[in-house]
């Protein structure tokens, strides 16, 4: 471990300890240090979501609950992302499947400005991708979101999902196969998967 990394880890440990002892300043600092990472992880896995605010709260309460067990084996940020990933997983498992196949509803793009068209296409594609992800296994979905959409290494995903490297690899492969199957009847999704690098079998 490099000197800078070791110094960061010891700072993380000190901050976690002060926060777990009830130091309000440390708790606030910890919240501000981690909020972007927690939000990013939850959003990447779940997409645009009206429950996101509640889920961020759930993740942070779980982070505070687990603080005394933080040993500094990874950075505080990565440790928080692991908890956020678990929160996302529980949220997916709790959700009921959608009654209507919303990804079949076409959006009409009326603005001819190229930038506006691009943004509209991106939104439409993202919506279709998350609609497809809603229909696959939660663990496969998380592995795909973190590895393909977020570009994390398989090792990092394994750490965040507390799984083996082989399990993560298998999940990404299965998620990709399932998404490609669904993309056969959805050209927007198919094109987007190619863009993301998730369409290459």
């Amino acid at each position, binding site marked *: 471990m490099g000197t800078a990394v070791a110094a960061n880890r010891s700072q993380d440990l000190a901050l976690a300890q002060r*926060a*777990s002892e*009830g130091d*309000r*300043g440390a*708790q*606030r*600092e910890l*919240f501000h240090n981690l*909020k972007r990472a927690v*939000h*990013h992880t939850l*959003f*990447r896995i779940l*997409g*645009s979501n009206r429950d*996101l*605010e509640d889920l*961020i*709260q759930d993740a*942070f*309460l779980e982070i*505070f*609950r*687990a*603080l*005394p067990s933080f040993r500094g084996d990874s950075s505080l940020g990565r440790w928080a992302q692991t908890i956020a990933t678990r929160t996302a997983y529980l949220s997916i498992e709790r959700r009921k499947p959608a009654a209507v196949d919303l990804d079949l509803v076409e959006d009409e793009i009326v603005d001819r400005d*190229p930038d506006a*068209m*691009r943004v509209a*296409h*991106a*939104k439409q*594609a*993202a919506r279709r*991708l*998350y609609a497809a992800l809603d229909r696959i296994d939660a663990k496969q979905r998380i592995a795909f979101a973190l590895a393909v*959409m*977020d*570009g994390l290494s398989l090792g990092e995903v394994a750490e965040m999902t507390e799984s083996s490297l082989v399990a993560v690899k298998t999940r990404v492969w299965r998620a990709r196969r399932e998404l490609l199957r669904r993309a056969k009847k959805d050209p927007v999704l198919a*094109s*987007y998967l190619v*863009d*993301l690098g998730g369409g290459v079998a």
Partner: protein
Amino acid sequence: MTQTKLGPPPVESLSDVAWARVERNVLSRATGTITNAAAARDVRHERKHGTWLWLAIPAAAAAAFALAFFSMNGPTQTAETVQPSRFVAGASPSTVSLGDAHITLEANTAVVVDRKAGKPSALLENGAAVFAIAPLGQPFTVLAGDTVVHTVNATVRVGRDGERAKITVQSGSVEILFHGHEINLGAKQSWSSDHPDAVDNGINVDDIQIESKKH
């Protein structure tokens, strides 16, 4: 369709107001969460080692019996001290007394009071209130947006407008935590989140009343 790669869906940011709400909720529950988790761990630790288990079972049974007995025959004070209460003052000021704390809510003010044993606190949702904490009472915490006020013995006015807060001490002393700043205020001093490093000295105690009337 454009030939440019779309890339991963952008992460939509949360508004500042939403973040402030999340932070307030998380931090107001953080300490209790950590304490409960530590207590649960202690219980698991005890279970793991099986120490004094043979004593704990009859003790727990006796405690459960006593709780059931008192809940049937006495006033339900336990439940009253655990549940948070929300107090709202409409067009005119209002006063609430809660054990060692005496709270005067100015007009159009809302306060949520949590009377947790040992750690009573009040969340000032909006408006202003004067908190009079008895000298020998429990430590009291007031949350106003990002501002946290701790006191064991003070009469202090806390005003809140969105995420801005103003604290004025009439008597006693308070400790303020704000964005990593720690400020100690004594009698006749005031502080505002607009100037977190500055303490205003020598205020007229009557200002509290004047401000109250202005509000």
